[in-house]
């Protein structure tokens, strides 16, 4: 039997990271993820780990770059404006193929924006906010329990593929408390790290960690290598949840905390005799095209719901590929979609397709 606790989302991520063998955390304060830092500051010294408050997000991600270069499991966390500052380091670490985990507890933007929950960093996370042809694996938990499980998975995936993995949450998930069941023991997968710059001990050639390859022909070969890796991940790591999809008239597409609100709408619709389903992407990159494929014939239409102006919407449309209409409803700036918002849109779509 594991341990059952009532915990805040931000704290659960920190605890999960420690359980996954992460002993290095570098970060800079920003709302609404600060409890994660506070937890690390308290807990890391107790487990012989390193907690360091950096002078900026830019420095924090570069400290991550340094620690990851030595082969250590390392975490940084921030919220939207801070994640923008990390983009340089994210691109470099992607070029150098360093494994690390980055948490973004999204808030409303653009600019300093607000501090309330948002999902408007989807493009930045999945399409690459930094320069160059790269991807991170992007995981989208929708409960505190899943924050725990996906944080552990994030470290394993990062090491397995030598890739950055991002936990993309929002202010609701970071701030809310829910029951979490911790496993007695984590399955920490270990992968070859003979590439690490951790001192050659006069036993091997020197290792170099770099993202620069001045010769374009050489750089192209590296890029071809990255793309092969991304292809492999796209084939093997798509994750999604299907909920109530059998004979649904309209299938909602939503991730993270918004998917939970959609489940509320599905209940409400059922009470009115309307059959709604939900596909909840758990990996945002790779986007679960396979999940869409599985249900493509079922509904009359898809309805994407986001706390943004419609970012994931583009990936849904690419996956649906014109075979069914794809609609959108969302709120922005830290406003949270309500069951009513969703139901209003559902009624509008029903009308159009009756």
């Amino acid at each position, binding site marked *: 039997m594991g341990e059952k606790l009532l915990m805040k989302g931000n704290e659960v991520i920190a605890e999960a990271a420690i359980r996954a063998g992460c002993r290095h955390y570098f970060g800079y304060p920003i709302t609404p993820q600060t409890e994660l830092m506070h937890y690390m500051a308290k807990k890391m010294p107790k487990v012989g780990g390193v907690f*360091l408050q950096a002078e900026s997000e830019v420095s924090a991600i570069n400290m991550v*770059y340094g620690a990851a270069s*030595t082969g250590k499991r390392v975490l940084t966390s921030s919220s939207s404006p801070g994640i923008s500052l990390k983009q340089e380091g994210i691109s470099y670490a992607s070029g150098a193929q360093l494994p690390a985990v980055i948490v973004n507890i999204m808030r409303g933007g653009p600019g300093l924006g607000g501090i309330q929950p948002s999902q408007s960093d989807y493009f930045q996370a999945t399409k690459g906010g930094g320069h160059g042809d790269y991807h991170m694996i992007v995981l989208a938990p929708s409960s505190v329990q899943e924050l725990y499980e996906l944080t552990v998975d994030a470290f394993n995936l990062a090491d397995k593929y030598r890739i950055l993995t991002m936990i993309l949450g929002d202010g609701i998930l970071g701030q809310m408390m829910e029951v979490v069941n911790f496993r007695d023991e984590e399955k920490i997968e270990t992968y070859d790290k003979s590439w690490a710059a951790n001192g050659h001990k006069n036993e091997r050639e020197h290792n170099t960690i770099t993202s620069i390859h001045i010769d374009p022909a050489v750089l192209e070969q590296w890029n071809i290598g990255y793309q092969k890796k991304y292809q492999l991940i796209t084939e093997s790591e798509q994750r999604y949840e299907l909920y109530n999809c059998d004979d649904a008239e309209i299938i909602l597409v939503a991730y993270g905390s918004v998917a939970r609100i959609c489940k509320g709408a599905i209940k409400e619709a059922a009470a009115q005799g309307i059959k709604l389903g939900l596909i909840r992407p758990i990996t945002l990159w790779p986007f679960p095209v396979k999940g869409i494929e599985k249900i493509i014939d079922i509904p009359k239409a898809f309805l994407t719901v986001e706390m943004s102006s419609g970012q994931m919407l583009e990936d849904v449309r690419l996956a649906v590929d014109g075979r069914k209409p794809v609609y959108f409803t969302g709120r922005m700036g830290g406003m949270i979609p309500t069951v009513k918002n969703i139901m209003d849109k559902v009624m509008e779509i029903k009308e159009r397709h009756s």
Partner: protein
Amino acid sequence: MAVVFRPPHALCDVPMHYCPGCTHGIAHRLVAEAIDELGIEGSTVGVSPVGCAYNNYLYFNCDMVQAAHGRAPAVATGIKRSLPDHAVFTYQGDGDLAAIGTAEIVHAAARGENITVIFINNTIYGMTSGQMAPTTLLGQVTTTTPLGRDPKVNGYPIRVCEMLATLQGPVYIERVSLHDIKHIRKAKEAVKKAFKVQLAGKGFSLVEILSTCPTNWGLTPIEALKRIENEMIPHYPLGVFAGADLEV
């Protein structure tokens, strides 16, 4: 047959890309000799900058990590906190350390991060072809100050050693020069001392090395060495700015 001269083991036997007359080669050699003499090549991780020395990860025989522009002290911090029993050094130019990387160097120094920083000051951006650096002297002509650096427009050159020495974190800061044999020897001692300070667990050490850039200065290698002596040292005086009485 007695061997009287050999390249340091900590330098790889590969051609370097530096221009003729550039003192980067000498600075690399001093770092490598210090690593050899201290016997730490297997337990050292170096951090390469962005600038002319961007690919010196190919030249040093210890494990090397290439960093983004100016971020080397943050990267080195991440490495050192992961490998506290290893020697960690950064090798940075004046654009990297004193312009885009100002926050990183100041805070690494303020934390007393137990790393060694080798800081190359040649008063110019070499890699991107001769632009003004934060260390460019007043009146100095560069590609972005074609009429000479004007303090009304561009402000004043930064004295990094003096600035960092105001902090409590650093334990050893010295400025040296490579303009003649005598000074190269002194520079060697300073570099080695900086590593010894780190190995003794004392804290942050930085050696600023006054260097040449004949290509972008438009001078011959010999004229360039003279410029260090006649123009740079008057503005950047040599000496120990922190840890003068430090014994290691």
